[in-house]
Structure formats: structure tokens, C-alpha cells
């Protein structure tokens, strides 16, 4: 039997998560129950994993196994979502594994103030994701229409063509930037905090034409932000703009990227 190590999913306030919330939820290693490790007024949601599987060497090769990584990512999220349904949760990065419970407790005790501050910041809030897509063909058709109207139709010479082309690309880029900024500003007004992320890598996109990849920290269920999305969708429909809302998510985009162990 190999030694076990605690895999950390997230941190909540001690006492805020009824242990029964996690009943029936399996962790990334399905042979061990999830449990709470309490320290300094905080509770860490952990599940034990085998050190044989999560040692540095073993993990390196596991990460090369796409099926394993996909499954682990989804389980990680699933566990956090269970907690999110019951309380405010601070999410940790996938595959955060401590040597022992004592090491984890030492981290919690030493970082208690920082973690409490993060919990206050995201208290009672969830993250919603909003992605905006623009139908490039429709937009170009519109801009070309405007450009054609502005010339006399006899401009076949090279310089004029180049000028028109540059203007078209310029108009398009400016329009897209303005449009994305306007949407983000409108949505940010309904959020306690907001971030704009770059579009995800091609491998992670299922659609072309993403002009906005925003994350919004919203109170409760985020009804006000959802209503704003509906209004924006209607407002921009004629341009071929579409808005996708995802979530509620644990506040992944509103926790520090890094905490240093004391």
C-alpha cells in the first residue's frame, strides 16, 4: 500500500460547508473519500491521492496522458462546484498536493490572513463567464458596403485598392475593439469585479470570432448581469454579435495567482 498525500481542491470558512455536501462526490482518486482539514478558522477541501500517482516523476508522465488530464480537470471542477453550491470557496490550481496533512495545516495557519482576505473579497459571490462573438462575414459585408458607398466605383488602380483595404481593416479593428470595450464596461457595471482575459488558445475554442473573454464576480446568482447580457444581445443582434454566459463558477479569476508559503 503506497503512502497517501492530501490533494487540495479549495478552501472555505470553517463550519460553512456541511460535510454531507461532499457525500457521494469522488475526488481525482476515486478510491478515497473527500474530507475537510480544519485549521485557523479555515477548512480545506481535500481528497487523498497515492504518492505513487502524484509524485513528481509519476505526475510528469500522467500529465502527458490527455485522458487523465481531462478527467482530473473535470473532477477538480466538479468538487469545487459542489462546495460552491453551499458556500464561498477559494479555488486552488489543479494538482496542488501536500506531503502530509501537517504540511497543509502549516500552510493554512501561515497564510490564514491572506486566505481570509481572499474569502472576504469573494464572499457570497460567484464568477460568471461571458464570451462575445462577432460574425466576421456580416461585419465585413457591412463595412464593405460603407466603403463602396464612399468611392465612385472606378478605383481600379493599385494605390486606391491598397488604401481601401487598409481602411477596411482599420475600420474593422476599431469597431471590434470599441464593441468589446462597450460590452465589457456595461457588464462590469453589474459586477463587484471584472477581468478581461485574452481569447483562449485555438485548441480551446469551439467558435471563431471571439472578441471578448470576460469574467465577472457577481453577488448571488448574478441575475443583474444575466439581464444585462440579454439586453446587449438584443441591442447588437443586427451586427451578428452573440454572447455566451457560463457559470456559476468558483471565483477562479478573482483569487491571487500565487500565495507564498510562509
Amino acid at each position, binding site marked *: 500500500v503506497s503512502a497517501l*498525500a492530501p490533494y487540495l481542491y479549495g478552501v472555505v470558512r470553517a463550519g460553512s460547508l456541511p460535510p454531507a455536501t461532499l457525500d457521494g462526490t469522488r475526488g481525482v482518486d*476515486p478510491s478515497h473519500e473527500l474530507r475537510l482539514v480544519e485549521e485557523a478558522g479555515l477548512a480545506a477541501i481535500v481528497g487523498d491521492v497515492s504518492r505513487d500517482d*502524484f509524485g*513528481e516523476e509519476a505526475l510528469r508522465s500522467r*500529465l*502527458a496522458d*490527455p*485522458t487523465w*488530464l*481531462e*478527467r482530473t*480537470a*473535470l*473532477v477538480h*471542477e*466538479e468538487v469545487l462546484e459542489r462546495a460552491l453550491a453551499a458556500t464561498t470557496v*477559494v*479555488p*486552488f*490550481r*489543479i*494538482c*496542488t*498536493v*501536500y*506531503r502530509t496533512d501537517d504540511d497543509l495545516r502549516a*500552510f493554512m495557519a501561515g497564510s490564514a490572513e491572506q486566505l481570509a482576505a*481572499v474569502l472576504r473579497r469573494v464572499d457570497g459571490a460567484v464568477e460568471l*463567464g461571458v464570451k462575445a462573438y462577432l460574425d*466576421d*462575414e456580416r461585419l*465585413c*459585408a457591412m*463595412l*464593405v458596403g460603407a466603403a*463602396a458607398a464612399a468611392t465612385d466605383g472606378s478605383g481600379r488602380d493599385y494605390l486606391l485598392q491598397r488604401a*481601401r*483595404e487598409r481602411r*477596411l481593416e482599420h475600420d474593422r479593428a476599431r469597431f471590434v475593439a470599441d464593441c468589446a470595450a462597450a460590452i465589457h464596461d456595461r457588464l462590469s457595471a453589474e459586477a463587484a469585479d471584472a477581468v478581461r*482575459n485574452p481569447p*483562449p*488558445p485555438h*485548441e*480551446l*475554442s*469551439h*467558435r471563431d470570432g471571439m472578441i471578448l473573454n470576460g469574467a465577472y464576480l457577481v453577488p448571488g446568482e448574478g441575475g443583474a448581469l444575466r439581464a444585462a447580457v440579454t439586453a446587449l444581445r438584443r441591442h447588437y443582434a443586427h451586427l451578428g454579435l452573440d454572447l455566451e*454566459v*457560463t*457559470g456559476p*463558477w*468558483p471565483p*477562479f479569476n478573482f*483569487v*491571487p*495567482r*500565487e*500565495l*507564498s*508559503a510562509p
Partner: protein
Amino acid sequence: VSSRDLMARGQASHPGQLSDVLERVLDKGIVVAGDIQINLLDIELLTVRVRLLIASADKAREMGIDWWESDPFLRGHRDRDGLDQRLRRLEERAGLEPDDDDGPAG
């Protein structure tokens, strides 16, 4: 618990699907620096893994991803190609002939 089940569940709760989960779980959330056994994923590694992940997830086609086409190692200068394609589309829209003066073979 099979990964298929999980994917089905993930998709049910998130219309944005697997990609939205990966975007967060692999790249966001607190990283602890210091006394910890394992502390990953540096971004470069992550990018490679994600590519592998999607390639094998047999979701690629469903998600409209042609990963062979978009892999810069297999394809060469992806960004430039993407830019060229966009420009070509704009040129077509504007009724212009694409100019060949920057292509090796015309």
C-alpha cells in the same frame, strides 16, 4: 466514474463545455509557492498538454477544431497564415484580387 460521464455532466451544467472548464482549472486558481511537494503547471507545459488533450479528447471534430491545421509545429507560421487568411477574406469582400507579391510561389 468514467470520463465520459464527467464530460456529459460538465456539459450539462456549462453550455460553454469542456473548454471553459479547462480554461479555468488549468490556468487559474491559487498556486502555492514554497513547501509543497508538487507545484505545476508552467504555462509552456500547459499549452503543450492542452493541445494533446484536445487532440485525443475525440471532441475535436465536434468542437469544430481541426487541431492538425492549427498546430504550429505541423503547420509552420500559424499566426501569419491566420492573418493572411483574414486579409484575403477582407480583400474578397472588398472585391480586390489578392496580391501575391509576398508569397514564395505566387
